[in-house]
């Protein structure tokens, strides 16, 4: 299993590193980082990614806007998106899923849950 490209969009460098470090435990993942929604979109258009993990609360462009734009892009209609956020309210979860996110995980970081979700979505 090689060649899965994963984009991690998160404004907090610490949280980004926590996610990246967790994902590196799955073999064959090439992980690219983005600081916010706009940076994420730039990287998505410059390459083809197989999985996207994004935060919601970010400067410049938030995660929900990013999810919505990604789903409107024909190249990313089926790409799994995992939202990882501090927003724990049911309506936030429903909104993210309605916009096209596949999974919604709340903070504080739940490494095992992230890994399980990624493995399930990517069939690895």
């Amino acid at each position, binding site marked *: 299993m090689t060649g899965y490209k994963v984009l991690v969009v998160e404004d907090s*460098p*610490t949280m980004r*590193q926590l996610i990246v*470090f*967790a994902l590196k435990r799955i073999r064959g993942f090439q992980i690219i980082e983005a600081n916010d929604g706009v940076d994420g979109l730039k990287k998505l258009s410059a390459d083809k990614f197989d999985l996207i993990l994004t935060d919601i609360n970010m400067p410049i462009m938030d995660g929900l806007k990013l999810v919505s734009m990604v789903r409107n892009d024909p190249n990313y209609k089926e790409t799994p998106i995992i939202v990882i956020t501090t927003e724990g*309210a049911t309506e936030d979860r429903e909104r993210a899923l309605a916009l096209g996110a596949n999974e919604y995980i709340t903070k504080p970081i739940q490494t095992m849950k992230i890994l399980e979700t990624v493995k399930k979505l990517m069939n690895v």
Partner: protein
Amino acid sequence: MSHHDEENDAAGRADEFLQVFKKGAEFTQDLLKENERLRFRVVKLEETLKEKGHDVAADAPDTIELKKKIVELEQEKEEILGQIKVVEEENQNFANRYVEIEEENNMLANLYIASYQLHSTLDFKEVLKIILEIVINLIGAEEFGVLLLDEKTNLLEPVASEGLETSDLPSVAVGSGIIGEAVESGENYFIESMEGYERDFQKPIVCIPLKIKDHVIGVIAIYKLLTQKDEFTNVDYELFTLLAGHAATAVFSSRMYSDSERKLSTIQGFIDLLTK
């Protein structure tokens, strides 16, 4: 024959017929009884035959051998079932242990990242930002503040916060209230029950003194956790203490670096002034 004679003759024949009929009935009754007796006898004989046949088979050497084999196999089956149960229990224990180790592994990995981030810079403001990020993303706090000790005034002064204004946080004297006492004792404080808690800047739900060995340099006071985080886990308690140590050294070294930089720049200014 007269009419009277004829009547006597008919009555005698009827009587005779009745006698024959009675005997016939008695004979039929006897036959039925005999039939019943014989049927009973047949059943008895069949049972005896069956018993005899069984006894004969039970005594046969092959049967004895087979019975022995069955007993052995039954015992073996019981032993195997017992072993399977033991293995299943062991398997369950290993699975539980695996989950525990995974959790510990994750915690250590997270702690490594957190401490790496904390010590990746000597910029005091950046260190404070990293502390905030760690408390949000690793602990799950929504409203909290970082207070550092001013050794000249012996007051804890708020320097950073999340979810509330830093300026709203009060200065706290060492030894005063929950925050001051936690700093004085150097012990972590956790509220007994969060039920019905209302935010009070003097009474946080958690106080984590920032310590370098026994020297306390400040405190993290938490007033609210994220909605989805309703309680602390055992891992959290360990994490608090370990992070507090790393955060304290990072704050201390970045502060010292900033001070020395400032002094250096002042001295450089004097030197420049003298040499011009």
